[in-house]
């Protein structure tokens, strides 16, 4: 089973599959070891325009449904979750503009992506993780400009983006209502990148600090109005979460496929180990979880396509898919036995890659808060 997708997406799926199989999967093994950002692979991906999948049709994108795009992202995630994260985080960086930007801002952000750039979303700060409202970055109006100061951390694509959507406090006394969202292009004086994370997984994705030091931007780079930053950020995450569920599902799918292939080959007690019903049941449980996660992702994305509320569904998709990605990757290692624990085999990487999906874009604890609030309501 898989996503139900259009004929156009099926056509693209074959090409993306070929590309990921030939150019991404094997080389990324080595980049997982070195931690180097594989520029050549991303250059090829940009040549194929994979970063444009989420760009709306009116701004030059391919005009696919979100479920269509999910099928393509899952294929990328199966090859390498870090690769898929880079591509998807670029869409994340673009979302605040699409949600709150004016026509000129939308055109500019989409053009940067169409021209081969990546986007980055800058919300998290050293003292503001799950409590995003505790951000200390400031934006002070100065004539026709804003001057931003502060430090953002754990920014996916931080070191490689063409533009950034940054939250900053325009009115510290107003709490979350004093937060605003700004569009900043790479190369703007005062914007630099700092510490690069040496991560446990998704090592082919770039994660670093983004530092704003008297960074002056035109006042017209404000997205929406002053004070709307927190709402825009939450709407952005509402949408983005389902995509993280999609990539986590891809990791789980890869883990299951690896486990099945190994289980058919590995002979113990005179027969392939997958002849044992105990292991067949493991695979069945993997398939049940993966398919459930995938269809939850599809449901959240379909709601989004139809412009319907999707906070709860998006949170369920992200939370459930990342939880089961951990479980499935762990069970895949179990089926590989000692070899599964070895870096020579592919499954230990999947566990390392899966873990972050329980953490970023809202920890799974935060997802449960979202689900609980949307289920219980105010009382």
């Amino acid at each position, binding site marked *: 089973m898989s996503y139900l997708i259009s004929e*156009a997406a099926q*056509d693209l799926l074959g090409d993306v599959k070929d590309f990921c199989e030939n150019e991404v999967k094997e080389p990324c093994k080595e980049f997982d070891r070195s931690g180097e950002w594989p520029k050549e692979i991303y250059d090829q991906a940009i040549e194929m325009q994979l970063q444009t999948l989420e760009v709306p049709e009116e701004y030059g994108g391919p005009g696919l449904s979100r479920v269509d795009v999910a099928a393509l992202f899952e294929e990328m995630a199966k090859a390498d979750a870090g690769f898929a994260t880079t591509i998807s985080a670029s869409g994340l960086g673009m979302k605040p503009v699409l949600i709150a930007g004016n026509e000129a801002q939308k055109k500019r952000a989409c053009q940067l992506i169409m021209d081969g750039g990546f986007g980055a979303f800058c919300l998290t700060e050293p003292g503001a993780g799950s409590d995003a409202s505790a951000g200390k970055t400031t934006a002070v109006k100065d004539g026709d400009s804003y001057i931003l100061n502060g430090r953002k951390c754990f920014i996916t694509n931080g070191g490689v983006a063409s533009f950034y959507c940054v939250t900053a406090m325009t009115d510290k006394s107003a709490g979350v209502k004093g937060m605003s969202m700004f569009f900043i292009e790479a190369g703007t004086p005062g914007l630099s990148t700092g510490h690069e994370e040496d991560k446990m997984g998704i090592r082919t994705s770039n994660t670093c600090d983004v530092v704003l030091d008297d960074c002056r931007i035109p006042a017209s780079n404000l997205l929406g109005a002053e004070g709307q930053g927190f709402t825009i950020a939450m709407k952005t995450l509402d949408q983005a979460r389902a995509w993280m569920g999609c990539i986590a599902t891809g990791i789980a799918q890869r883990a299951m496929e690896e486990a099945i292939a190994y289980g058919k080959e590995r002979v113990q007690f005179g027969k392939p180990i997958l002849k044992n019903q105990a292991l067949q049941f493991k695979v069945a449980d993997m398939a049940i979880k993966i398919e459930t996660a995938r269809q939850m992702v599809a449901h959240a994305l379909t709601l989004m396509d139809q412009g319907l509320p999707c906070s709860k569904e998006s949170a369920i998709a992200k939370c459930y898919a990342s939880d089961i990605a951990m479980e499935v990757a762990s069970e895949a290692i179990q089926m590989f036995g000692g070899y599964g624990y070895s870096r020579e085999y592919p499954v230990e990487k999947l566990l390392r890659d899966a873990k972050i999906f329980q953490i970023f874009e809202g920890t799974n604890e935060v997802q449960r808060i979202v689900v609980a609030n949307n289920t219980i309501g105010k009382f």
Partner: protein
Amino acid sequence: MEILVCLKQVPDDSVEIHLKPGTEEVNLDGVTPVVNAFDTYALEMATRLKEAVGGSITAITVGPEKARDAVKTCLAVGANQGYVISDPTFEDADTLGRSKILAAAIRKLEADAGKPFDLIFCGREATDRASGQLGPQLAEALGTGVIVDLVDIEQTDAGICAKQETEEGYRKVESALPCVVTVNKPAYDPRYPTIKSKMAARKMAIPVLSAADLDSVEPGKPTAHVVKVFEPAKRQAGVKINEETAAESAIKAVDMMAAAKLL
């Protein structure tokens, strides 16, 4: 430069295929049709030439209507327009017959466009039947020269200069135009389609030409007859020679070959 690329849709050659048990029928259930690999090399070479000197590429295939997918694939990676040549009377045509059909189609396209093709690209062979005859037969039918097994090509004042791969190495061959060339695996891989080119290719019309659209094409009865279809024999396990030293292993290997009267 007006370029034509001939292509063939074949079963995916990365999949191991077998005969249906007890028959001489190849089991292609579940095997995806793809563009013949050598034809994708030909298209890539043609596209690079077009990018260097300008011009247009037309892709054509003789086959069932569903071979349109193969043409569509090519429209996403360099071809500007494409046609399927399809007719029930063409189904039994062998390579010679297909070359006659292609020649008739080429004449028809040239007449419609009011200009001839300068260069006609084919793959060196198809990965399904691997006869390797189509290019030379097509050149014969069109009355042009032919250069086979190209790995590179460039335009010259007089026509083209081609780098031909031979058993011993390479040979440079020049030709005036028009000319037919067949392409071997060059030093580069075919490009991937872009999202945009793929979406654009989906929207392009791919006309189907039938026998009625062509001038008096007569593919003729197949001149080659299939005697038997069978699977290649399984390779027998080899002999491992692992003596104390490499020199002793070499001596033993030579002795064994001498004993088997191979030397």
